[in-house]
């Protein structure tokens, strides 16, 4: 279900983009699911077509959906592949941790620090 709240501080395109992105990431919307057309979704939600088009464009840029010409927009397999790649990397890391004898809590601390470094902004020169 997609909900658009006119009173929300978030603009409608961002409400739509965030809800679709969440449903794709949590697999509520499976890979290959066909999304409504821009015009149809705009009519259903009482939005301008440009608003829906912007949300779709941003989802496409994030690799979550893909547009196949006249066939419409579909949930992309790219997000699923990225998740599988991360799971493979985690399994390899777990194997390394086990082989060198690091305990679980320390292994989690290491991965948390690595994640923090990865998302932190790089220092300006």
């Amino acid at each position: 279900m997609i909900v658009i709240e006119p009173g929300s501080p978030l603009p409608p395109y961002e409400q739509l983009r965030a809800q679709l992105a969440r449903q794709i990431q949590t697999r509520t919307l499976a890979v290959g699911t066909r999304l409504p057309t821009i015009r149809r979704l705009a009519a259903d939600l009482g939005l301008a077509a440009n608003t829906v088009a912007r949300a779709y464009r941003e989802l496409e840029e994030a690799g979550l959906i893909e547009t196949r010409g006249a066939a419409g927009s579909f949930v992309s397999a790219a997000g699923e592949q990225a998740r599988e790649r991360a799971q493979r990397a985690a399994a390899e890391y777990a194997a390394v941790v086990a082989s060198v004898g690091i305990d679980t809590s320390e292994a989690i601390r290491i991965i948390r620090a690595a994640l923090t470094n990865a998302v932190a902004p790089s220092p300006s020169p």
Partner: protein
Amino acid sequence: MKTSNLDQAGTWLRRHGFTDASPTPLLAARLAVRRRTQLGAQATVAATILAVALTYKHSQREAAAHGFGLYGLPVLMLVMVGLVAVRYALDWWVRRTDRQWEQTLPRRVTYPVRLGWRSLLGLPRAAITATAFLGAVALAMYALSIPDGTARYAAVVLLIAVCGVAVGMVVQLRHVLTRPVVADDELSLDADLVMRVEDAKDAASPALLWIMPISSVIHSNIGWWNYAWSVFVALSLIAFAVVSFATVCRGTTARSAARQATGVTVSR
């Protein structure tokens, strides 16, 4: 809002498995306009059958007097155009009521998936409807090949009527498939989908098709053709009954089907 409309909306909710829900003015208004348009659609069906029968009878008399029926077929075509126009007007009335209520909603909700004809009608029901039309056209074409002027005229009348009914059905189905969702919460969204499924089923019913030849070809007493049509109607009815029974046996309420609407068939 009339209390009777709210009561009927409550009954509708219970019948469709929404046992924990209370009727809202939005639902009551949408159901009320559908009831009225259904009545209008049924009156249109009756008027169409009468018009086809009268046109056929008048043309026969005309043909007996002048050797050919001059006005029968154009009048019948006009009747069919009228049928499509009335169906379109009834759909427009439903859409107008929906639009009025849309503007009062505090927020809007919808499904993130595309609900096409396959989701709403179900492939078996759609296939039976399409087969029923193809069968009717095939039988009418066979009747055209009979070397008897009366039978051929009746077959042309039937063909025009079948084409008119088909166009009316397409217009109605297009309306059901393309009209925007009118919902502001989960309940109204589920109800919207159930209404859409019901409307699609009503639109795709070939009942009018089955009775069309009574006012034309059957009257012309072509023995084998009448038997063939009877078998065709019986088979179509059995197929429809089997599809409906299978859906009931699946044990899903319309609401539970609606809740799974992200990617599943919801025909019922």
